[in-house]
């Protein structure tokens, strides 16, 4: 405001109540989208089932409680205040499958791939009852490879599935690498040691849908110190 003028916040011409409401609603919309780094409101074509969402949230909370209990002082380290943090649940999309293997695809939004730092991430898989004994399963994390169709192996774990229930695997490093390269797609390949091992993985849908739970925070530009 020019010198001697009134503060624009105080002295502006009053708007008609209906116009003022529209202006404020528009301001609220723009503010939320800008802070979420979304150019426009997302169009949700495949909403997750309520059961799957509630199960995923419960698993995340249980993991958090376990982590808090295992730290020396019984608390999860807190981040700096004011730094925007995200918790992301990415549910699997089905990919190709054979009698021995199945592929799951996870897609991450570009704003989470590029501008954020992945702090931790876990892949949750629910196994149906495998019958008697244990069943070995190999879990491979594949990242897209521009040169080939199969992708590059970012990690591999061998599991002995003993019974029905959830398994959580740390995929933080793989997701961090993916994020660093600006990648958006992570593929998980599950391979059983023998044919017919695939039914080990519970059917998709319902509340046993495989998912990745990740925690990320917005990258803060480094400060330059002057002495």
């Amino acid at each position, binding site marked *: *405001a020019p*010198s*001697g*003028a*009134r*503060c*624009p*916040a*105080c*002295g502006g011409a009053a708007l008609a109540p209906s116009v003022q409401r529209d202006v*404020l*609603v528009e*301001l*609220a*919309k723009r*503010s*939320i989208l800008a*802070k*979420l780094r*979304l150019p426009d*409101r*997302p*169009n*949700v*074509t*495949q*909403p*997750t089932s309520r059961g799957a*969402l509630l199960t*995923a949230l419960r698993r995340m909370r249980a993991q958090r409680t376990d982590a808090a209990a295992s730290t020396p002082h019984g608390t999860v380290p807190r981040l700096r*205040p*004011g730094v*925007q*943090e*995200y*918790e*992301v*649940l*990415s*549910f699997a999309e089905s990919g190709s499958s054979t009698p021995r293997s199945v592929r799951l695809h996870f*897609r*991450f*939004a570009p*704003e*989470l791939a590029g501008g954020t730092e992945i702090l931790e991430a876990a892949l949750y898989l629910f196994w149906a009852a495998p019958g008697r004994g244990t069943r070995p399963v190999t879990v491979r994390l594949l990242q897209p490879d521009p040169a080939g169709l199969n992708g590059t192996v970012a990690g591999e774990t061998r599991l002995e599935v003993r019974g029905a229930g959830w398994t959580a695997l740390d995929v933080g490093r793989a997701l961090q690498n993916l994020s660093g390269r600006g990648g*958006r797609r992570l593929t998980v390949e599950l391979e059983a040691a023998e044919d017919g091992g695939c039914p080990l993985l519970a059917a998709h849908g319902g509340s046993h849908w495989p998912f990745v739970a990740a925690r990320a925070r917005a990258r803060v530009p480094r400060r330059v110190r002057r002495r």
Partner: protein
Amino acid sequence: GVDCVGDSRTCCRKEFFVDFKEIGWEDWIIQPEGYHMNYCAGLCPLHMAGIPGLAASFHTAVLNLIKANNADAAVDSCCVPTHRRPLSLLYYDRDSNIVKTDIPDMIVDACGCT
């Protein structure tokens, strides 16, 4: 901070709620049901400058009033948020993933004069 009541003209906090259902955003924002945005409105006479709300010291107000009377080209101070808190959102992103985040400084809790 002071909440606006009736026709109050001095700096105060006006409540403003954006219902996500009303604006057609309930399909991608899972929680909460709306946004308590709120905003600051009202006049800030110069002797009120630097007072966060009306509960500050009487002496500060008197000193500011003296300063205001002596100023040649005084500019009114602004009615601005003095305390804000984050808005927690659980929403679907563009890939139908579910994201939970706390957006800092989104809800105006209190207003005061600069």
